[in-house]
């Protein structure tokens, strides 16, 4: 490793070089070992304060970040958008400036507006870590998915990764896409035509609207939930029909290579995008993704905090 980390913020995987992504993954490997010890805590971020500011609600990502911060010995403050002064008319920037005035070191934020993080990162000395911005990006989820794939296959180069579901509304698909392409994987997006736009072909993604096409030859299949909360009109007739055309079940599983991994960023809608027995089956690495997420977040916090 001859690369030095220089970023105070993690905004999107799009910004990172392949070497920077690999540095995060290598660092996360060591933090994963820490999480498997009896003493699951290191003093690396002792004296640093991390504010978890979730303007858009989250449970799994917030808990994962919170635990990662605790395991690094940081001090933590949790703020939800609904209970902050944003509801009293304070601007986002003023809220951030107030957090900065309290000598916080890192702000982990989730926000519904794409680009919110880039905006605040320009206006604060604090490190800014993107925990999801609208349908734009969710870099730590992308990194943990890539970490999980690399752990199983050793390298991403030449692997065929198919991401299936509500691509249109998915920040997970976008973050995965940038990271996977940078590390040399072949990316396929699949889903109903209304939820899987052809525009992604411009950056080198294969787009198809047929499940079989997406599964044949895939080394990894990453299934996404239908984000009903972001859909304001009917993108497909019914979830039953969606399941028949795009759900992974024991019949469609036969199209996959025998060693192929089944992934899902959660929360799963069982028997919509993924049948229960596959979710709990031997190809599924869904819960490993959750464990790896903490190691990856520890690595991201460690690296960004070191620059502050």
């Amino acid at each position: 490793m001859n690369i030095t980390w220089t970023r105070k913020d993690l905004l999107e995987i799009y910004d990172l070089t392949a070497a920077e992504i690999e540095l995060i993954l290598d660092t996360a490997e060591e933090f994963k070992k820490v999480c498997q010890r009896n003493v699951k805590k290191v003093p690396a971020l002792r004296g640093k304060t991390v504010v978890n500011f979730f303007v858009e609600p989250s449970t799994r990502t917030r808990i994962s970040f919170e635990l990662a911060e605790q395991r690094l010995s940081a001090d933590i403050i949790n703020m939800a958008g609904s209970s902050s002064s944003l509801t009293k008319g304070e601007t986002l920037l003023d809220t951030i400036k107030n957090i900065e005035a309290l000598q916080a070191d890192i702000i982990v934020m989730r926000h519904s507006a794409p680009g919110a993080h880039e905006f605040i990162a320009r206006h604060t000395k604090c490190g800014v870590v993107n925990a999801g911005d609208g349908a734009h990006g969710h870099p730590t989820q992308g990194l943990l998915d890539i970490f999980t794939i690399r752990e199983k296959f050793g390298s991403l180069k030449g692997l065929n990764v198919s991401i299936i579901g509500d691509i249109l509304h998915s920040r997970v698909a976008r973050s995965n896409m940038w990271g996977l392409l940078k590390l040399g994987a072949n990316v396929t997006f699949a889903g109903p035509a209304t939820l899987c736009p052809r525009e992604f072909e411009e950056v080198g993604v294969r787009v198809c609207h047929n499940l079989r096409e997406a599964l044949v030859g895939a080394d990894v299949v990453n299934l996404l939930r239908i984000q009903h909360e972001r859909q304001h009109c009917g993108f497909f007739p019914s979830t039953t029909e969606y399941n028949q055309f795009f759900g992974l079940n024991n019949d469609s599983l036969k199209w996959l290579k025998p060693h192929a991994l089944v992934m899902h960023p959660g929360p799963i809608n069982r028997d919509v995008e993924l049948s229960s027995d596959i979710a709990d089956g031997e190809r599924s690495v869904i819960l490993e993704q959750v464990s790896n997420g903490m190691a990856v977040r520890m690595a991201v916090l460690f690296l960004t905090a070191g620059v502050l």
Partner: protein
Amino acid sequence: MPQKKLIFNKAQMDEAIDRIADEIIAEFKVTSTNSNPIALLGIQRQGVPFAQRLSAAIKRKTGSSPLEGILDISMYRDDFGLRKTLPVIYETIIPFDVDDCNVIIADDVLASGRTIRAALDALTDYGRPRIIRLATLLDRVCNEYPIRADYAGLHYKAAHNRKIVVEFEESNGTDGIFEKHWDKGGDYKE
């Protein structure tokens, strides 16, 4: 041109490692049938080849192979965020049970003792060794922290603005211990 002065050569390094191995064998009464094993824990990065050399010397002399491990202390440093460059985390591998073990921490150079302070914190997060000893190939005799080497191969006093660099054939292509100057920016000259 950067200044790099050879202060100890390969023969002196070999002799020092040999002597430390003899001292460890004597203290822990290492024999081919020893039932109370010792573990050599090399600190990343140059403590690792040093620990391997020590281990090989002990095996050659006694027929008994010490346990071997690798410890990275980046997560335990006390200067996180103070350094100009971020510590890169290297691999930690401790393939033995630390509890009740006789652990010998091995590092190439002992200067302030801060690395060893961090190593003690890291090691005790893995378990509760019975005995911990410190072996260093070169002791700079700084005496900043109340930390002293139990086994020191060589002693060398150098000014604070000098860096001592130990090179091993395994990682650097050749054996030798060098003294280098800091430049004004605080970075080492190569």
